[in-house]
């Protein structure tokens, strides 16, 4: 008895939705980046599930590229957070209103 594909889609949709809500409701930039990781993982689950169900390895190869982009995003994002903390001594998004002032 194999698990139907729709179960994986529901799971990945739920995780992606959690990531979206996390990006919207959190004030801490680090947790916002963690929520972006959640969304990337949801797409990866989708890719691997479709790759298994359609017998196409290309889906797993795309997970590699998503992983590369995630690593690059984390490196640059955390560097930006460090620079922000040095300039503003705050990493809460509602304190960062330089362009509004």
């Amino acid at each position: 008895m194999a698990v139907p594909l729709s179960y994986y889609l529901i799971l990945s949709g739920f995780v992606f939705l959690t990531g979206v809500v996390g990006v919207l409701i959190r004030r801490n930039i680090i947790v916002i980046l963690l929520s972006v990781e959640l969304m990337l993982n949801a797409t990866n689950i989708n890719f691997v599930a479709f790759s298994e169900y359609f017998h196409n390895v290309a889906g797993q190869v795309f997970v590699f590229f998503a992983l590369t982009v995630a690593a690059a995003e984390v490196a640059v994002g955390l560097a930006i957070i460090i620079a922000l903390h040095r300039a503003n001594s705050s990493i809460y998004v509602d304190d960062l209103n330089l362009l509004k002032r």
Partner: protein
Amino acid sequence: MDHIFFFYFAGVIAVTSLLVVALRNPVYSALALLIMFFHVAGLYVTLHAEFLAAVQIVVYAGAILVLYLFVVMLLNVKTEERYHNQLPVAGLLGVMLCTEVILLLIQSRTAASAVPGDPVITSGNTETIGEVLYSTYLFPFEVASLILLVAMIGAIILAKKDIGDTVQ
């Protein structure tokens, strides 16, 4: 048997992803994400993507999450007292998207409930991925290395302390 494993991994993934968003201490959020990464790796094993499971643990849990924890410790982040002001908007959006997903899945129940046939891949998972990656996707692979190089240089320049002073 497959169902038991799937529901275990899916349940833990769902709960820990909720915890990542809901916990107020960033260290706890990062640790919840660590548990989620391990269970996603387990889900990959049940989907016959063993190599990706290993990469998931090594890269995500080993490298990316350690980087997060390092920055959390470095910046001495406090616990968040409250959520962002756009919490009602986010809740509305979440409920809307959730109902949309449920409606779509109810409508397409027959199409989406496909089950896998017999696997056609005879050689090992790692070998197959390597063959596809280094033949069909050779150019994207090289571009990915370029992205990593740019990210490395960008991270060094952004996080270096006195680089802004010398520019001004």
